[in-house]
């Protein structure tokens, strides 16, 4: 069936099976491999993208559920060569080690700040509960999200 969506501002229309998961539509059909498949059971959050501006786990969404909707992936965040503030914060705070969880972590963090613009450290830790980092590099991830929010999480 024909499934169409706006991905990172570009209209995409592809003929796929109804059982195609959004993450496979993005990676295998649209060629956007920035979104990773981790656990494949909606636990780890590596596949997090935005659907109509909100973080979702694309391994647990059928592509057809995103039909006629807007999807943003990690490839859609930067403005040309200028990193998105969250990407810049991850860079500056060294918020990644192996990097596998990073695209999902950043997409979840951007969605979190949309909903909680001035989070406390607890807000960030709880808000990212759907994203696992197997390097366990959470400390700098939390630091980066607080930095991107422009605050220190109420530490001072």
């Amino acid at each position, binding site marked *: 069936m024909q499934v169409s969506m706006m991905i990172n501002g570009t209209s995409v229309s592809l003929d796929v099976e*109804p059982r195609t998961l959004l993450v496979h539509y993005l990676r295998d059909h649209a060629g956007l491999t920035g979104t990773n498949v981790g656990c494949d059971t909606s636990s780890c959050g590596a596949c997090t993208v935005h*659907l109509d501006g909100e*973080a979702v786990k694309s391994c*647990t969404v*059928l592509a057809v559920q995103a039909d006629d909707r807007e999807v943003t992936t990690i490839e859609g965040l930067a403005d040309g060569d200028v990193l998105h503030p969250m990407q810049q914060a991850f860079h500056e705070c060294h918020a990644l080690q192996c990097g596998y969880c990073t695209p999902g972590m950043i997409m979840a963090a951007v*969605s979190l700040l949309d909903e909680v613009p001035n989070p406390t450290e607890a807000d960030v830790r709880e808000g990212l509960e759907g994203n696992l980092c197997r390097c366990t590099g959470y400390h700098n991830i939390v630091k980066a999200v607080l930095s991107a929010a422009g605050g220190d999480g109420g530490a001072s």
Partner: protein
Amino acid sequence: MIPAAFDYVRAESAGHALELLAEHGDEAKLLAGGHSLIPLMKFRLAAPAVVLDIGRITELSYVRDAGDHLAIGALTRHRDIEISELVGSQAGLLAAATSKVGDPQVRHRGTIGGALAHGDPASDVPAALLALRATMIVDGPDGQREVSSDDFFTGFLETAVGEQDLLTEIRVPKVPDAGWSFQKFNRRAQDWAIVGAAVLVNGGSCGVGLVNMDSRPVRAAGVESAIAGGADAAAAAASAADGLEPPADLNAGVEYRQHLARVLTRRGLEEAGA
């Protein structure tokens, strides 16, 4: 993991969904947010021939003040309930339980009706609705009927929603002055509850719903009658596991779950002001 192949049909309205259910019968499964069904389909534990997508029926997504109760559309997402001021002020227990479902990504997709119709005893929301004495509205071939939360969960992953039925609304009594507590015990963030307790204290009476303490979401009836009879929290909570048959799995055995039910119920009663 990729689901087995299926035919996809999209319902445009509640009436259309009922027509499609009548047409496809037991070959069809309803898809709302998909956060119970899609994982089952990926594991091939479910392989419906037809997936009937009701996820775009916007007429079934709402929270309304309906006098003595809140009317919540079955397709209202967990996220929308979690942040609803109406739910927070009139049925805070439901908002609290909903905020503990999965993680933010899951709550952006999952719906209250989907979670209820799935009927998972490990799910957070059913326990809160049992404690609150909610009523479910089910539309079917013979019209609309009301099902009390006590009669809704009929067995393991089984509910009063028949193969040609559509759960359309959840009615939750308004209890702005009630004390409440939602206790969820798990080992890691975003895990399912090993055991949970949803407690509502309203004057001299209380409602207690338990998570993962039987093959279906259940009330701790003995605790409720003990409180009504004047028992204090500790004494009442002692009967929290009576008559229940909790599962045993890698996380916990039967006795440990019974222990957790008593402890969490006591904490819940104390926090809710019993």
